[in-house]
């Protein structure tokens, strides 16, 4: 079998692989994006350009907060997420667009979408769309979901547009009439009915949807100073949360869009991609491209090597020849609700005595969080009570040794041990 083909068509452009930089700090200006292109990223959605960025740079400092897992934000070694508050481009619109134009001319094979944001004002949107088109971009992404208040009066301009299907449709229509480029719309998870927003974008003439933007969040509080993070003269405010912590939510949103039968737009996923496994999951759920920010912010553009090689290895193993075959491949396996799932399958935990290190974590979890089905003996061995075990799966989640706990069918087990 030949090497799998990672190419994928997105917004009418042939991308060399499905991996793009998301509109964010990692795509702030040409030199950064160029470095990412050289390392193998297929394309980029630029940091959102707005007319307001000509203001002198008064970006907030600090503007990021690490969201720790299993500890306080400052000390927890594992960062499950990143909160971002007020990150903006620190050069003029003119320079920014010239920068992107030069970049695109030097990398014609890379996909470049210019992201735009503005208030609910036809003139602003059409002006920006004209500039992006003139810069030679391959697509325009509309940021209708930024959780940051970016309007001049502090009103949540882009974000508030994305709350309302009617205004989404209108903005897309304005932009559509000012450019011949395909239009992508970046969505927020903070809506009651995401599919309705997607449909409105479709009616307005969009070509693709990006889901999701960051989530509104509070980044925790410094208990030494009683000030919230990130602390700015003792104060803070809500910030946009990204990274591993939001991946399950981003996947839910993608499922909502991919599962809407009348929605025909191409989908680009964003939200918590940290490794090839995450990215492949998004493709299997229905995304054609995957956008990344936070993991790059934490470990650099070199992440592309893991994504590219991991995807190729996966495709080879499962005999997918093209990314197109992969897109949405597991959709038939997602029921619309857990009520539709079978109750016939009944499993039981089996603990491999050779792999078990005797930590007793499974025992504690089962005792206090499940069915009291695991015994912990004074010699630090464990035993599963097959009568009590309900096959819930909690023990395997707590076990530090991969594959030490397996699940087998309860029926088979009782037959086998009889």
């Amino acid at each position, binding site marked *: 079998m030949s090497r799998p083909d990672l190419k994928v068509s997105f917004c009418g452009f042939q991308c060399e692989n499905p991996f793009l930089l998301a509109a964010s700090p990692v795509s702030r200006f040409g030199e950064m994006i160029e470095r990412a292109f050289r390392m193998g990223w297929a394309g980029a959605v630029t940091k959102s350009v707005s007319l307001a960025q000509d203001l002198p740079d008064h970006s907030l400092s600090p503007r990021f907060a690490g969201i*720790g897992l*299993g*500890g*306080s934000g*400052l*000390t*927890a*070694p*594992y960062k499950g997420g990143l909160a971002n508050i007020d990150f903006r481009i620190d050069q003029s619109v003119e320079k920014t667009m010239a920068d992107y134009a030069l970049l695109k001319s030097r990398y014609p094979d890379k996909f470049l979408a210019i992201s735009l944001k503005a208030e609910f004002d036809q003139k602003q949107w059409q002006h920006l769309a004209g500039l992006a088109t003139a810069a030679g971009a391959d697509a325009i992404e509309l940021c209708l979901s930024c959780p940051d208040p970016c309007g001049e009066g502090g009103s949540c301009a882009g974000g508030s547009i994305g709350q309302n299907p009617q205004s989404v449709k209108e903005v897309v229509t304005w932009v559509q009439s000012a450019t011949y480029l395909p239009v992508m719309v970046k969505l927020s998870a903070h809506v009651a009915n995401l599919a309705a927003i997607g449909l409105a974008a479709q009616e307005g003439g969009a070509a693709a949807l990006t889901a999701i933007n960051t989530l509104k969040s509070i980044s925790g509080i410094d208990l030494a100073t009683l000030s919230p993070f990130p602390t700015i003269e003792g104060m803070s405010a809500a910030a946009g949360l990204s990274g591993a912590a939001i991946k399950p939510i981003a996947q839910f949103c993608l499922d909502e869009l991919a599962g809407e039968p009348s929605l025909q737009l191409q989908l680009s996923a964003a939200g918590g991609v940290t490794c090839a496994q995450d990215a492949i999951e998004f493709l299997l759920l229905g995304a054609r491209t995957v956008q990344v920010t936070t993991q790059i912010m934490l470990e650099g553009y070199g992440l592309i090597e893991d994504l590219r090689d991991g995807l190729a290895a996966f495709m080879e193993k499962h005999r997918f020849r093209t990314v197109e075959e992969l897109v949405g491949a597991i959709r038939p396996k997602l029921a619309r609700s857990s009520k539709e799932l079978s109750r016939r399958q009944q499993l039981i935990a089996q603990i491999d005595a050779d792999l078990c*290190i*005797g*930590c*007793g*974590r499974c*025992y*504690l979890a089962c005792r206090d969080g499940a069915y009291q089905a695991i015994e*912990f003996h004074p010699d*630090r061995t464990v035993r599963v009570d097959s009568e009590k075990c309900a096959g819930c799966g909690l023990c395997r989640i707590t076990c*530090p*040794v991969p594959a030490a706990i397996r699940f087998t069918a309860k029926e088979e087990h009782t037959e086998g041990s009889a």
Partner: protein
Amino acid sequence: MPPTVSMPNSMPPRLKGAYWEAARCLRCCDPPCNQGCPAGIDVARFIRQLSKGDVSGAADTIERDNPFGLICGWICPSEVLCQKDCTARKLGRAIDIRSLQRFAIEENRRAGSSNRFLTRPQLAEQRIVVEGQVKREAPTNVAASSGLVAVIGSGPAGLTCGLILVRLGYRVELWEKTDTIGGRLSHGIPSFRLDSAVLRSELEILASPLIIHRSRAFGMELGLDDLRRQGCQAVFLATGKWRENIPEIPGNQLIGVSTADQILTQEDWKSAGVKSAAVVGAGNAAMDVARSLLAEGVEMVHVLYRRTPKELTSWDEEREEAWQAGVIFHLLCLPVALEGDSAGRVRSIVCARTAPGPLDSSGRRSFRAVEGYSFELPVEMVVYALGYGTDCASLESQGIWVDEEGFVRVNEDLATNVDGVFAGGDLIGKGRGTVVQAVADGKRAALSIHQYLSRERRQGE
């Protein structure tokens, strides 16, 4: 208010990674680390607190059970105690608990918080680990406590016992033979193992609540009768072991022959310009001596040991550091004589090769010299580091029973044969010799003395 403390500014790498290391803890059920700490520190709890960023709570957990938490964080042989059965070892490597302990307390000292054992509003329920079993003891009748207790010796056992008794409401007077408090801590721990400024400030804090009589030795001039006459109702003996073992071989009178204590506590040898030395013995003190010699410019340092690595009592880490520092180990050899030059200075040490014999009374294999098989090492200095014995005479003069190995005989409550007299620390047995065990003895003795005095008072009423 206890005095403030000075902390070293530089932070060793293993402390910088403390939060990562704490996060590696498996938080296992019935944690083996807790059974490994003689002083009864709730090890699993303080690691969990640290992993969740609660560094103040971690220090509280450590110091509620061990007033010497910071010092143990430098020198405790954790690999044979709390880290010994760490479950994470089965995933490759035990948690570096000693460094986590030091980190938690140093961070708190930096933040201006003093030793929590002293600043707690009241004495916590005390946890003691005896043979792997965690026992908890909450002192009762505290309100009625009164009376005077004498503590002999200001090492970790004596200080711990005194501090607990003071918190229980007793008057405590502490008698120290030398002019420096701290016992073995202040006499013989080289600064590469324990920063001397940290030790000094820590001892100063711990001694602050106690009345201490310095330069008063127990025995002839200060006997049990004298203490009773002064009103002491109970006595805790924690004088340690100080008489250095020296083999009786020809040549010991030569210039250049000394003992571990002389090397570790005195300075004059440093100016002698010696280039080669033999250290006899391979325990922890011998390792400290060997490394101190190297550090002062002695180029060839030989360690002579009559047994094999199996019988070594020094801790693996100490020995490994000595190997890496350049110490040359000679196993299975026994010094039989020292040769001197015309000026009466050591010229060489003559050793016999040894071979294994039957097991001795301690269960260790004995080793005997092999006839006609010997070698001679040219050295300018010989240091005996063969361990310490008890000063039996001063104890026996007071009617206290000492066994044939030189240890004071005590029961489970650390009571000696003399009514109202308790003993602990290095005095009472093998397998001691650690700060943490001395602390554990101090705690146990304090609680026993409290029980004893409460009983006496009830009987008196």
